[in-house]
């Protein structure tokens, strides 16, 4: 800096010093307003959905008592005699989530670890886009895949030597075939979100681990995975939510029989599949069946909310902070 030594001639005509804004910056204000409107719209729509579900749900519980809905009675809202025990289709959803996540979470995490820690630069450059393309395949295609390929295969190789119920060969539509395919469908989501989290950890941590003589496996399991834990949990939750919410694959491949069971070789009806196949236009407005749709939707909404809340708490508790 030469300010002190250089002689500075003040300019002869000096404009008065002004620190006020040189223009009113209307453009910026307009953009801020637009952005705010976008954010507000998202919130408003969510509130709208909740309200739209809440009304008919309240009406449902006016007609059918809580004690019948939350019960093990058969699920048959549009039959005579009717039955509204939601546990049957809750079990269907739980069963699908169980089998699909048993595949998707470990495989997705494994794929992420492979991509991030083991794959060569070239392999990664090819595999990552492939994963992202897989995420875009319409779910109805996966449903066909389950029906035409996975179900017959599982029927053929079913371990019939197993004792009891587990040894019974499955029929044409059953939980495991839908679960397996749904699991495969979710792997890319889990893998890609987990890997993003892993690649975001500071490079210094990986260097430190290698510098201490860690093997690749040790770097991955003791440093990378714990450091990326919150992102990995996020990917699991995303996978779980997709399994809970998936409709098409289960509608096509898991059967359509409400069944209070977790056996892999049973057909089930999930909550989403119930909504999907019932809400087809020939449901009369104002019938009990109509209100049942909303009650089930409300329950789905609450379940997803609970999953997300738990996961946020988990992430807070176990996050390994770095700066």
């Amino acid at each position: 800096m030469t300010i002190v030594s250089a002689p500075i001639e003040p300019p002869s005509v000096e404009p008065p010093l002004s620190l006020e804004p040189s223009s009113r910056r209307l453009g910026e204000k307009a953009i801020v307003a637009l952005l705010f409107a976008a954010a507000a719209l998202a919130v408003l729509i969510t509130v709208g959905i909740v309200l739209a579900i809440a009304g008919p749900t309240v009406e449902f519980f006016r007609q059918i008592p809580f004690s019948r809905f939350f019960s093990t009675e058969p699920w048959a809202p549009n039959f005579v005699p009717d039955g509204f025990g939601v546990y049957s289709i809750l079990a269907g959803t739980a069963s699908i989530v169980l089998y699909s996540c048993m595949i998707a979470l470990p495989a997705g995490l494994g794929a992420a670890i492979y991509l991030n820690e083991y794959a060569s630069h070239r392999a990664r450059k090819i595999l990552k886009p492939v994963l992202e393309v897989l995420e875009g395949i319409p779910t109805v295609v996966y449903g066909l895949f389950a029906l035409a390929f996975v179900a017959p295969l599982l029927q053929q190789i079913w371990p019939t030597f197993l004792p009891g119920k587990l040894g019974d060969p499955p029929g044409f539509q059953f939980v495991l075939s839908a679960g397996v395919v749904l699991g495969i469908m979710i792997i890319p989501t889990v893998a890609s979100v987990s890997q993003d989290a892993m690649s975001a950890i500071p490079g210094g941590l990986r260097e430190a681990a290698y510098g201490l003589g860690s093997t690749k496996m040790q770097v991955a399991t003791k440093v990378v995975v714990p450091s990326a834990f919150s992102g990995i949990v996020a990917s699991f939750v995303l996978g779980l939510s997709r399994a809970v919410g998936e409709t098409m694959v289960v509608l096509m491949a898991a059967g359509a029989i409400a069944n209070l069971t977790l056996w892999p070789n049973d057909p089930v009806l999930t909550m989403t599949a119930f909504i999907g196949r019932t809400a087809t236009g020939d449901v009369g407005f104002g019938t009990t069946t109509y209100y049942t749709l909303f009650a089930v939707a409300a329950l789905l909404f609450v379940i997803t909310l609970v999953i997300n809340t738990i996961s946020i708490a988990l992430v807070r508790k176990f996050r390994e902070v770095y700066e």
Partner: protein
Amino acid sequence: MTDQATRAAGPAPSPQRAARDVPDVPKEPVFTTQDLNIHYGSFHAVTDVSMEFGKNEITALIGPSGCGKSTVLRCLNRMNDLIPAARVSGEVRYHGIELYGPKIDPIEVRRRIGMVFQKANPFPKSIYDNIAYGPRVTGMKVDNMDDLVEQTLRRAALWDEVKDKLKQNAYGLSGGQQQRLCIARAIATNPDVVLMDEPCSALDPIATLRIEELMAELRELYTIIIVTHNMQQAARVSDRTAFFTVKVNETTGDRTGGLVEYDRTTKIFENPSDQRTEGYISGRFG
């Protein structure tokens, strides 16, 4: 402290710790490099480095930015293997064993030759787990991990400051403490050599001083090689100094790093034999 600040501080720094007897050449070399060349892809980063690093000595690598100090350092424990484009040729012997020989496992190498980085990089774990990490992954036989952690932290002169918060996250420590924790973590497995790449460049002068004191103590147990931007630091802590610079090929204009002069630190700072060394340490040339 920046390079500029160091140079502005006055005339060439002189070694303040002249008490140690440093033989003309290392009595017992830990590393010997012969015509060491390192490329990143087609870029020739370091050319023809031949030198010896003595056991239980502190060797400083100094020189302007980009002259290949870190590159040479990282080649001594095969950290360069992590950079796909890096290629090493020539010879690097560690206790006589060719480090880049076909049967050498870089993981085994790094278990004996620890490293401390420019930016403190503790794991996002507790102080205790940071120290215990090395012994755990290397499968070291440890009778009592608590004792090992305490002993290591004492050796790194950090015990008194952290003994009440061993279970707390290491990121709660100050920058200087984090760096000393990283040094402690590196010596927990009792390595043979500790490589340090500008370990103080992100620290304030007081934290820097503490680390320099620590190095002086650790020299009795380990061989230390330190890259530093700070010439006064090299003068203060090291037994031997290697001056590197960027050499420009007159005809092609290609730039490459190389060793200019390597000698006892007192000699380098009091009576350098190469003009470029003299220019650098007196701040006339960078």
